[in-house]
Each structure stands twice: as C-alpha cells, then as structure tokens.
C-alpha cells in the first residue's frame, strides 16, 4: 500500500498526520521535514523564546516519540526536489523516488529578504535556527553597544523590537508606510502600538524606503535609505513579509497564485493532492483568494486536508484569529477587518487597553483587542455565531456583550 506523504513537518503537516490517525486511517504516513528539528512552534521564536533561550525541546509541537507512537514515519533533513503527479510520486534530493496514494503539501513560507549579497548580522525570523542565531547576535550587539535595526513595522518586526528592548538593545524600526501593522489593523490600533513602542524607547521611522544594506568585511554595519540616510546597525532583522513556498507545487503544474490555490476543503487542482497552512491561497465563494499566515489557519486547514485525503468534505469556515505579544500588551485579533466602513472602540485608548470593533454595512466583521482578553474571547464567539452587536451597544462600556450570547443560547 502506498503511503500518504506529507511534505513539510510544521504545524499543518503534523495536524494532517494526527487527524488522519484520529479519523482511523491505518495506512502508512510519511511526514517529511526539511529542517533538522522535529516539529516545533514558531510563534514564540520572535517573542518569549528569543528572550529566554528556552530549551528547544520546549518548543516542540509533539515529541518525536509521540509522533512515532502514532506510526507516523517522520523523516528530518529530507528535501523534496520534485512532485510528479502523473506518476504519483515525489523525488528526494538524494535521488529516491517515493510513490504516494495521497499527497499533502504543507511547505510553509520563506522570509522575504532584501536583494543583494548576503551579509552576516542580517536575519529573518522563521526557523529555530534563525532565532538561535538572532539571540546570539543580540548578545554581541549588547557587548558592543551596537543598535538593532528592524526593517518593517509588522508583527514580526515589532515583536522582535519589543524583545530586543527588553534585552536592553537600542532599537530603530524602519517602516515603508505611514503607520505600524497597516495592512492588518486600523489607524487607531497602529497609533496605540506606536505610543507603546516609543514609551519603551524604540525609534520609529515612517515612510522610509530602504535602499540597501551597508557592509564591512561581510558584516552588516548600516541600513541605507532613500535620501542617503544611513542607520548604523550591529544587526538587522528583516520583517517585510513572507513568500508562500509554492515552488514545488507550481513546478508540478498545480494552480498557484502567490500560494497553492485550495478550496475551502483544502483541495488543490490535483485530485490526489491537498495543501494546508502558510503555503496556501484559499479560493473564497466570491472568487477572491485569501492568504492567512497563522497557527489557527494551519490547524483548521490541516483538519480539512486530512478529511479530503480520506474522501470527505470538511470545509474550514471558522472565523480566523491571530495574536501578537509586544511588551505587556497582548494584541489579539479575530475576523478580517478588510473593507470595514465603521469602527467602534471599547475601553481605554491611552493605557492602551481597548478593543476596536470593525463593521461593514452595519455588521460586525472583526475585533482587534489590546490587552482586552475578555473582549477577544467574546468576539470569537460572537463572530463564529454570526452575532453582531449594534455599534452603539459595542461602544457602551455598561453594556454586557456576553448577554448577547446568553440570549441566543448555546
């Protein structure tokens, strides 16, 4: 019996393998990981883990023993060089050809880096190796009193900036647009985040176009921006987004467009191949493509993908959610705010401890919460149940949002 092969041993890949077993699939499963490490959690890499240098074992999504116990054949350091859909096999870098009964692509994404020759001291933050190298670079910068320059004021960049400030580094963030996290959150949230970072001593520079990196003896020494300004840097973190890893799929002829195109059930254009997680672009009912880079998406799409491999339909329809930690501010987001036409705030904007409720055509579509955990948890339930509080009620601090859930019943 040919195995189900899963390419990519991250969050989505592990989820597919485990869901297959939970759904009583008893055939062979091959889980191929490109890295030397077993499956691990990536979110802490730019946050707590970077500061505290925990034991890598504590990052594990599952222990390798637990994976083996479920008769999942995990292979590390395993690079796939091609997929041959016509022959239903994958080719490995070592020349092996592995036949599959079903194939899952969970290849993730790679960090978008700046063009130009590689320099030491320039980091993306995606892998455990990246984080370990960056943690070491932080110590070198501290020893030399050299600053960190972060390129990109998005989640990863800001999390790294916060962590570096906690460690005592001097930090400058260079953002190409006019505000922080601008692709995801409303200006009011950006402004609150900017206040927090400034209060912690981060230099924020907006509307800055990075032209390139300046190096000395192969080591980065500064970031050069349009207009000729140079920001001295002991190390540089590039946080300008990721590129979905769809090269194998595209070369195999699968439909791709900034990601492997999948439907709500995680099926690709090939009936034997599914895909899940950061590598995908999901086709929505209205024909548009949605890219989500989050753990929640990897898990839910992974469950859909496992079902699809077993010939079942389990569409992923749950409201997406995300989180970010910056200093002691917990930013939690649920829903997609794109296209909102009204925004209501609840809580204390100055502290900051508030939530932004996004509405489109009078209906609630998303909620961003800064250190308002209760609002976030409630908002997940409201959105999942299609409950839309009236904007005036959302804004009224005396109004108990939870009463809406009780009224509708469980």
């Amino acid at each position, binding site marked *: 019996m040919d195995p189900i092969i899963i390419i990519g041993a991250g969050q989505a890949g592990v989820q597919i393998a485990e869901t297959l077993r939970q759904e009583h699939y008893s055939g062979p499963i091959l889980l191929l990981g490109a890295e030397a490490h077993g499956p691990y959690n990536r979110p802490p890499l730019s946050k707590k883990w970077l500061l505290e240098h925990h034991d890598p074992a504590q990052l594990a999504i599952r222990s390798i023993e*637990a994976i083996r116990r479920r008769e999942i054949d995990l292979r590390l350091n395993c690079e796939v060089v091609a997929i041959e859909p016509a022959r239903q096999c994958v080719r490995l870098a070592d020349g092996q050809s592995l036949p599959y009964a079903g194939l899952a692509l969970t290849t993730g994404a790679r960090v978008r880096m700046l063009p130009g020759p590689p320099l030491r001291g320039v980091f993306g933050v995606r892998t455990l190796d990246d984080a370990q190298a960056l943690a070491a670079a932080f110590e070198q910068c501290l020893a030399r009193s050299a600053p960190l320059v972060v390129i990109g004021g998005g989640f990863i960049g800001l999390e790294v900036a916060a962590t570096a400030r906690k460690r005592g580094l001097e930090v400058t963030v260079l953002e190409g647009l006019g505000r922080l996290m601008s692709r995801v959150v409303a200006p009011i949230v950006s402004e609150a985040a900017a206040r927090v970072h400034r209060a912690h001593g981060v230099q924020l520079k907006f509307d800055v176009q990075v032209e390139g990196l300046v190096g000395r003896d192969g080591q980065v020494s500064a970031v050069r921006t349009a207009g000729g300004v140079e920001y001295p840097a002991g190390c540089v973190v590039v946080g300008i987004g990721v590129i979905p890893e769809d090269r194998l799929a595209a070369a195999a002829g699968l439909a791709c467009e900034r990601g492997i195109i999948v439907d709500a059930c995680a099926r690709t254009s090939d009936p034997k191949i599914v895909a899940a997680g950061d590598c995908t672009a999901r086709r929505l009912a209205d024909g548009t493509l949605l890219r989500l880079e989050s753990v929640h998406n990897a898990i839910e799409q992974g469950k859909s993908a496992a079902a699809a491999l077993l010939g079942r339909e389990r569409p992923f329809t749950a409201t997406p959610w995300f989180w970010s930690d910056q200093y002691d501010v917990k930013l939690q987001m649920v829903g997609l705010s794109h296209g909102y036409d009204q925004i209501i705030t609840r809580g204390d904007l100055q502290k900051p401890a508030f939530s932004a409720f996004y509405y489109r055509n009078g209906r609630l579509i998303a909620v961003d919460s800064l250190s308002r*955990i209760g609002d976030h*948890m409630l908002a997940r339930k409201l959105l999942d149940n299609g409950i839309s509080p009236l904007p005036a009620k959302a804004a009224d601090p005396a109004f108990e949002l939870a009463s809406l859930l009780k009224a509708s019943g469980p």
Partner: protein
Amino acid sequence: MPRVICTDVSGHCTALEIPPGWSVMQSAVDRSIEGIEGLCGGMLACATCHCYVDPQWIARLPAPSAEELQMLENVAAERRAGSRLSCQIFVDQSLDGLPIQVPDRQL
C-alpha cells in the same frame, strides 16, 4: 518527576510525567493527548489547552492570573469550577497524581 493523571475525551487515562519547568499543557501536547491543542504554545493567547482540574484538588493549585480568568470566561467548552488553562499549571512533587480531564472541545 510529578505525574498528572489525564483523562482524554474518549475516557482514556494517561499518566503524564512533567519535567521540571514544563507546564501541564507542554507535557500533554508532547505526548499528543487528544483534545489539548495548545495552539499558541503557552503564550496565554488562545485558550485551547482548557482542562478540568479535579474539584478536590483545585484549591491546592496557585490561583489563576487575571488574564487567565478572562480567557476562561469564554472558553469553547462548558466552564466548570475546576476549569483552568493547562499552560498555566506547573506542578511539583506536592501535586503528584493531580487528576485532570480534557473538555469535549477547544475551538
């Protein structure tokens, strides 16, 4: 190592050995206990490692933080007197044998 006795959704019982410095959630996901998700890796952001601590034992644990209490207010499964987030439970030898139960859903 202290052990936590974990009953999963299908009634299956596992004795989880908790290494020093590990949370109950970390040990549970490490052992692949069905029904403990721990999506956020213990960052107190997702509430998908909800568990029920045996009511007889609950008072022996350090009280939950304000943040944990807020997350517990709207967990996916029913909230009970023993509801805790297992990423916030750290045990020592004095809590050896702590019984916990996995709720029917986390999402």
